[in-house]
């Protein structure tokens, strides 16, 4: 596949990622991954962190990249799996699990959709030497599906179902992803969000006041909302 000729920086990373390779990543860098990634979302976090179940495999020996993903997959008659498309799911929902999860698995790359609150990067990911990569778009399911070379294993499929099970994917030229947070906890989404905020007021300029005000338009609970 010929890559786009962009002004943006592109970086290939072999998994498990070394601290040196992670240090090269800056917000907005484009990343492609090679090696093994595992999927885990609320079903898996709940089992391991709340119900104290053992990890099905010593993940850190294989990889340190956690993908917040549910594949469009189905099982074949011979027991193998077909992966059609692969897309991330929104990560902010998993924020509360991240500290304990990174400690338990030594995960250093968290991949998902839309990032997590900027404070989480400063307080949780960066202190543990971890970065966050976001998928692009967000629907590059076919491109990412193409990067999945093999399903190495799937754990808790019966218990959690296809969407929530823990999949281990062998990947090659798996991407593109964009770096959201780097090792210092800087956030691309936060930076871009602040820039966008500067132009928002202008978009509302000149619009007349609504007949009925609602919570959400003001944060002050003392306001009379009529």
């Amino acid at each position: 596949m010929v890559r786009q000729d962009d002004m943006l920086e592109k970086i290939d990373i072999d998994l498990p990622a070394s601290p040196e390779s992670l240090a090269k990543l800056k917000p907005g860098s484009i990343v492609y991954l090679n090696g093994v990634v595992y999927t885990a979302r609320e079903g898996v976090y709940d089992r391991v962190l709340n119900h104290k179940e053992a990890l099905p495999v010593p993940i850190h020996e294989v990889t340190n990249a956690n993908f917040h993903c549910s594949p469009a997959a189905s099982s074949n008659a011979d027991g193998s799996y077909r992966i059609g498309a692969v897309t991330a799911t929104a990560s902010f929902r998993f924020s509360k699990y991240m500290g304990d999860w990174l400690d338990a698995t030594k995960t250093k790359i968290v991949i998902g959709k839309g990032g997590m609150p900027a404070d989480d990067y400063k307080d949780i990911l960066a202190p543990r030497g971890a970065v966050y990569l976001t998928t692009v778009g967000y629907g590059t399911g076919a491109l990412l599906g193409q990067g999945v070379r093999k399903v190495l294993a799937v754990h808790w499929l019966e218990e959690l179902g296809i969407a929530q099970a823990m999949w281990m994917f062998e990947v090659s030229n798996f991407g593109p992803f964009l770096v959201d947070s780097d090792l210092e906890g800087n956030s691309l989404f936060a930076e871009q969000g602040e820039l966008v905020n500067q132009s928002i007021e202008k978009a509302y300029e000149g619009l007349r006041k609504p007949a009925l005000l609602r919570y959400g338009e003001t944060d002050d609970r003392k306001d009379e909302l009529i």
Partner: protein
Amino acid sequence: MKPISQRAIEEACYEIMKKAAVDIPEDYLTGIKRSAEQEKEALSGFVIRTMVRNYETATAERRPMCADTGLPRYFVKVGDHARFEGGFTGMERSIRSATARATQDVPMRPNRVHPLWRTDYNNNVGINAPEVEWSFEPDAGWIDITTVHKGGLFGTDYRMLFPGDGIDGIRRFLLDTLIAFGKRGLACQPAIIGIGIGGSKDTCMQLGKQAACLRIVGDRNPDRKIAELELELMEESNSIGMGPMGFVGSSMAVDLHIEVGYTHTGGMPVSVHTFCLSSRRATARIHADGHIEYRTDPKWFTPYYRREGVDWEGAGLGQARRYA
């Protein structure tokens, strides 16, 4: 002539499920390529170009373009003269059977779960799922079946506005919705935006969803004033300063469609829907003789569907006068 067989109906449903998941509609691809050309910001431009590359890969490799294959649902338009085996419940059974088979074969993600117990049958079928919306068409012997695969978490909202809020109220609500869900790109913009105005709360939501999902890029409402409003609001959506993934940019709307329904004299309900970057839809027409034609334009909003009067002929004349 023999009635249309249940087999033909099920085959049509199965095929459109596959096509919708894999092949981006041509009108939308043209629209998104135009967004790519117009986008000046490097990051936003990269995102849109990557999406175009993704659609090409999906079609070349017969993979779903997005792993979130959404909540598959159906819109069925039955011609007055169509005759088919099994009756309407038979058609609903065919739709459910095709959904289950396509979920396994494409493969699609079995997204549908019980809302409380989170249990599922791994086949996108369950209580009230997939949804089937019915409409009818005079002077026709065919059945049109459209499927739409739309994600479901972000990008849609409803607000009861009042006549005094006027078009400004709609503008404000649209901005609120696009900005709230556009941050970090949760609405998966740029997208086709649908706005429903009027009706009851539920029809307002329905009209907005249909406006987003069942009209193609470039299509304009036949009411000239509404058509102008569509273009104005699209321009404003793209002038917020936001692009894909909530990055700085100028790409929020690939197109914007408005549908209206007569409403309560005291209110002006409005709904806003964004049909995500991967706007997936496919339509099959099963002709009276059983042969099936596939297309990507649902042709859902017929003059009959938008009729105003008691009688169809009378309504047609009324529309002709208004739009002349």
